[in-house]
């Protein structure tokens, strides 16, 4: 077997390596980083436009909403920075194969955890912002009376139900994105230890 193997030649080798050095990686982590950068730009542009609108609309009467969007925008940027740092620490290609696989599993599970937390937390945060701040402000500006207790109960129950629903939807989505890869990495780690 070894003799046959070592008699192989290199005729099928692409001759020009130099152009390859200028290309970007198509590995999974590089793709995830690129997607994250696109998402960040979308958030910056969308939240930027929303903030500017609220600062100038109604002669500045809604400027406090503009500040809410600015703060949310900064929170998103922080969230993206955390995810980007996790991605940077995910690979160590020059480490031993087992160490690299272990690192990928650990970091990917943390990444998924942050994804699930952020996707779920957005619902109660949005509900609190809408019910406790936005709706009373708009009603006050339109001369309408405050909401009664039935509406408060409705919002609380609705928030809890939507939070639970979004938690499971988010988990399904994240599992679809990364679940199979995590399972595969764990299986390979088991193969390494299995005699």
């Amino acid at each position, binding site marked *: 077997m070894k003799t046959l*193997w070592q008699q192989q030649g290199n*005729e*099928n080798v692409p001759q020009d390596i130099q152009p390859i050095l200028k290309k970007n*990686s198509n590995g999974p982590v590089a793709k995830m980083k690129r997607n994250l950068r696109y998402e960040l730009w979308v958030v910056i542009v969308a939240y930027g436009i929303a903030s500017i609108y609220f600062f100038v609309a109604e002669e500045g009467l809604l400027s406090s909403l503009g500040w809410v969007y600015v703060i949310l925008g900064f929170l998103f940027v922080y969230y993206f920075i955390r995810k980007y740092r996790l991605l940077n620490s995910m690979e160590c290609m020059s480490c031993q194969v087992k160490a690299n696989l272990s690192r990928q599993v650990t970091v990917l599970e943390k990444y998924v955890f942050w994804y699930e937390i952020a996707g779920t937390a957005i619902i109660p945060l949005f509900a609190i912002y809408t019910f406790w701040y936005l709706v009373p402000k708009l009603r006050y500006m339109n001369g309408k009376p405050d909401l009664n207790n039935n509406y408060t109960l409705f919002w609380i129950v609705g928030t809890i139900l939507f939070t639970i629903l979004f938690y499971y939807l988010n988990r399904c989505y994240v599992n679809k994105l990364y679940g199979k890869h995590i399972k595969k990495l764990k299986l*390979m780690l088991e193969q*390494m230890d299995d005699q």
Partner: protein
Amino acid sequence: MQPTNKQDEFLSLIDQHKGAIIKVSSLYTRRKEEKDDLFQEIIIQLWKAWPNFKGQSKVSTWLYRIALNTAISGLRKKKTSVIYIDGQDLPHIADSDDHKEKEEKLKSLYDAIHQLPEIDRAIVLLYLEDKSYEEMEDILGINQGTLRVKMNRAKEKLKKTIQTMAYGA
């Protein structure tokens, strides 16, 4: 002539070890386009890691770690059926009187190795490349005892697979 800059040094290194990279690419892909893509990705990862390589390990150890990490941990669609490799996509054996027969045997060997799990493929590759168990441990991070057991099992599987393919043909 001595390489004049880092890129020249790197290209010289790749030239010396391109056979190993081709073999890793051939073992972890099934089609020519996938093989070319994996070959490129390994080169890109080697180039990224090159500035940080200060001779902490042997060059071949460093190179195999990166090549196998790239091949093993990349996301790839799960194969649904066994696809036998087109012999034209494999490295060729130098012309000799029996080179056709050897190429057939080599193709059978590649097909058989392809049916092993990814980690076993890496072990078999390093074994066939004449790496010691100590070097294999350094590359893969699996202890030598486990490597020997896995290699013996892999040899048995390969023998059975090649025999099945020969009788089935």
